[in-house]
């Protein structure tokens, strides 16, 4: 048996309110390609952040044993000094610097007082040659494509004397040819003795390159499959990824579904920066009164982009398609007009796009519908206080007073404030984007109850979620989206995790 290069023993990492990793174990042999798979939020990236020192020693429990010794990394520099190099999903290159400058950023050649550009460029050229990139080191990063940028990242890792290469979704933004080339490169490195860990959703790629696959689910390691022993079929891997029971985690509701409330037809959206890239491609969906419709898919499938572009064109360029509300075509040019047409979008990114953390619960609750509590532009503060209190009680927001700043609340309570804000806007159709991301089980249950209450009042809910059990447990109808396209529509009765997963995988 080959030497164990890396062993992560009983790693547990807790964030306020959430256990992200629970007793995770991972063993990687020298010279193998080890794949990590799991659903969104299963804990793969967290685990890699622990390994690379982004979460410093002491902020987690458990041991990292690398090359025979227990490691206590405090920063990325520490782990890189040992040869552990991580390449993140979002490329960390600086567009207006050259390839060479980027490769040796923080690792500059020459002395402290004078960078040796000749050595920089010569070494850069050498590593570029190894990864098979035919560009000179003097080319600016912004002038080469994403595929080539990915190769630069790898060359950069090699320049740091990487012994263990970690790739987080390396092919997510690459086209087929570039992906293939990248995988071949990994196999070539393996022959030369390099060890790699690869995180990916693309199971076909994984079963092609990986020697072992470790499945992570809900922050725990489920199993490790070995190419020599186990079946590496996609069905087998999916079973490991999703194989959990749906117990009473979802409150029951009376179904009372009415007519079609909102319909979106032939919706196409282009990327705001890369104007030729279609982010949403000819999508048509509808939602009925009193119905919860789910949109399943992987991260980056275009679901958030779909929702935001519908919500007053707050995302994307060159948007085409039609929206009908109660059978009448409407034109939602701005967010204000979308709100006027009784539409609400509850963002997935509470802190970034949803709430004003430096303001109180009261102020956040009223923000999207200030006109209702003001006369001629003057806010009726008594009324505002009353509204704040009403929604605090309705949604059971746990806080000492509604004057408290939202930034001090837990994730679950923040989510409730965000919901309160949009419920106060009195919408008929609510688009909930990842409404339970990063909050604990108890708070999740309460949010599900709120959703049930909303549809009981005859409102329509569109729920975007990457958590399959939640989609299956809550929705009446499920759309499956992948790479900007709608790839399936299922009734709740016929939907299972396996069916949805395979619809996604089939079209990848």
């Amino acid at each position: 048996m080959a030497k164990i290069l890396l062993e992560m023993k009983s790693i547990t990492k807790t964030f306020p309110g959430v256990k992200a990793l629970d007793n995770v174990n991972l063993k990687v042999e020298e010279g193998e390609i080890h794949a990590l798979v799991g659903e969104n939020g299963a804990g793969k990236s967290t685990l890699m952040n622990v390994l690379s020192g982004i979460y410093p020693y002491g902020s987690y429990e458990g041991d990292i044993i690398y090359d025979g010794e227990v490691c206590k990394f405090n920063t990325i520099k520490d782990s890189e000094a040992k040869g552990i190099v991580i390449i993140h999903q979002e490329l960390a290159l600086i567009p207006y610097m050259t390839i060479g400058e980027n490769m040796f950023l923080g690792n500059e050649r020459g002395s402290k007082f004078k960078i040796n550009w000749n050595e920089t460029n010569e070494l850069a050229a050498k590593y570029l040659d190894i990864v098979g990139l035919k560009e000179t080191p003097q080319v600016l990063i912004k002038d080469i494509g994403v595929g080539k940028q990915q190769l630069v990242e790898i060359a950069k890792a090699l320049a740091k004397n990487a012994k263990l290469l970690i790739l987080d979704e390396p092919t997510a933004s690459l086209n087929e040819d570039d992906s293939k080339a990248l995988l071949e490169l990994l196999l070539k490195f393996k022959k030369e003795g390099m060890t790699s860990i690869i995180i990916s959703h693309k199971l076909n790629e994984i079963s092609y390159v990986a020697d072992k696959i470790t499945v992570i689910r809900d922050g725990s390691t489920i199993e490790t499959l070995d190419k020599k022993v186990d079946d590496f079929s996609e069905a087998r891997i999916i079973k490991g990824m999703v194989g959990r029971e749906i117990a009473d985690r979802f409150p029951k509701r009376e179904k009372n579904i009415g007519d079609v409330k909102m319909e979106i037809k032939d919706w196409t959206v282009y990327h705001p920066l890369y104007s030729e890239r279609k982010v949403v491609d000819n999508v048509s969906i509808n939602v009925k009164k009193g119905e919860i419709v789910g949109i399943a898919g992987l991260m980056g499938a275009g679901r958030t982009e779909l929702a935001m572009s519908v919500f007053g064109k707050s995302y994307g360029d060159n948007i085409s398609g039609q929206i009908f509300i109660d059978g009448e075509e409407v034109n939602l040019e701005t967010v204000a007009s979308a709100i006027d047409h009784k539409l609400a979008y509850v963002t997935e990114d509470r802190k970034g796009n949803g709430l004003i953390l430096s303001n109180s619960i009261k102020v956040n609750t009223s923000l999207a519908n200030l006109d209702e509590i003001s006369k001629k532009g003057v806010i009726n503060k008594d009324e505002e206080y009353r509204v704040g209190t009403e929604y605090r009680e309705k949604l059971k927001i746990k806080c000492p007073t509604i004057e408290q700043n939202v930034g001090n609340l837990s994730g679950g309570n923040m989510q409730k404030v965000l919901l309160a804000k949009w419920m106060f806007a009195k919408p008929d159709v609510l688009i909930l984007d990842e409404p339970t991301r990063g909050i604990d089980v108890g708070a999740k249950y309460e949010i599900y109850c709120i959703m049930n209450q909303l549809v009981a009042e005859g409102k329509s809910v569109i729920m975007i979620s990457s958590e399959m059990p939640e989609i299956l447990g809550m929705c009446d109808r499920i759309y499956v989206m992948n790479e900007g396209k709608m790839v399936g529509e299922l009734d709740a009765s016929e939907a299972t995790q396996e069916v949805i997963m395979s619809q996604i995988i089939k079209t990848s």
Partner: protein
Amino acid sequence: MKKGKNLDFIKKYTMIIVLVLVYIFFAIETGGSILLPMNVSSLISQNAYVFILATGMLLCILTGGNIDLSVGSVVCFVGAVGAVLMANLKVNMFVAILVMIIVGTAIGAFQAFWIAYVRIPPFIVTLAGMLAFRGLSNVMLNGLTVSIKDCTSFVKLFGGGADCFIPDPQIFVKVEGFNVVCLIVGAVSIIVFIAMQLTSRRTKIKKNYAVEGAAAFWIKTVLISAVICAFTVQLSRHKGIPTVLIWVLLVVLVYGYITSNTTTGRYFYAVGGNEKATKLSGINTNKVYFLAYTNMGFLAALAAMVTIARLTSAQPTYGQNYEMDAIGSCFIGGASAYGGTGTVPGVIVGAVLMGVINLGMSLMGVDQNMQKVVKGLVLLAAVIFDVVSKRGGKMISKD
């Protein structure tokens, strides 16, 4: 729990406490002369422009820590326009005032357009404005001083010259050494203030809203009343209410009301707190930026009137570093350097603190240059306090 409450109290009223301590310090160091009626009065007249500009600057800073560097030059330019109109062209005072307001607001709107709709960084746009309007002031004045000494009604109205105070009408009983109007105004404000405090507290209790304890309420009310009382008595011992105080109070009250009670005011805080979230709440954030900078131009025009009235002339060098006084007052007064927090009363406290430090050091005969050093350090200390206390007391950033 008790200790936490004390800490919160200190945090909430830091600058007021600092202001009181600084005042006491100067009172001792100057042998009480900073408390003299004349000096209390000149604290207002000297710093009127700071109060006005700082209020406008607060709106800019609220939108995300954005500042307006051009205000000093705009003050100078608008002042030059006014002086030339009134002194050289003998234009009617009210026409001149109207023109000055239009010019100031138009300059504000011009800069605001680039900032709000084209999204050129405010720093750049207003830096350009700072250079351009300084130059234009020189051109307008031919590099000379234009005196407006003869435009007495304008000078009086905006608080310049020797008798820019509200005089006692003939019918009033004369009280030797006191200005009666000022005393009456003081008494009335105290009564109105206490009445307002009481009614607001009563409605809050009636509607079951959170209120502070009775003791804290009364201590606060009595203290503020005492300050108003001492302030107006001192003013009345020195000729009475300076006319410029009326302008300052008007600005402070109107903008205090706008920022705390209107939807528009709310949007300034929202944009600075989280622009994306504000946009997704259906609010036109471009318009908010536009308003902030246009309004800055408007208030710069008002500050220009106050400035040329006080100095009874316009000169190409007027208004230098005014922007820095305004920005400094905002940050010292608790506005966040990242935007989203800060209040008009806070900014006024900041401006008064700067004014007191200025006045106190002048009275002590501290060298002008050292005064600048002290002011700089106070500003730095205030912002360090803001940033560190937001980080939960940790001095060194980990991000």
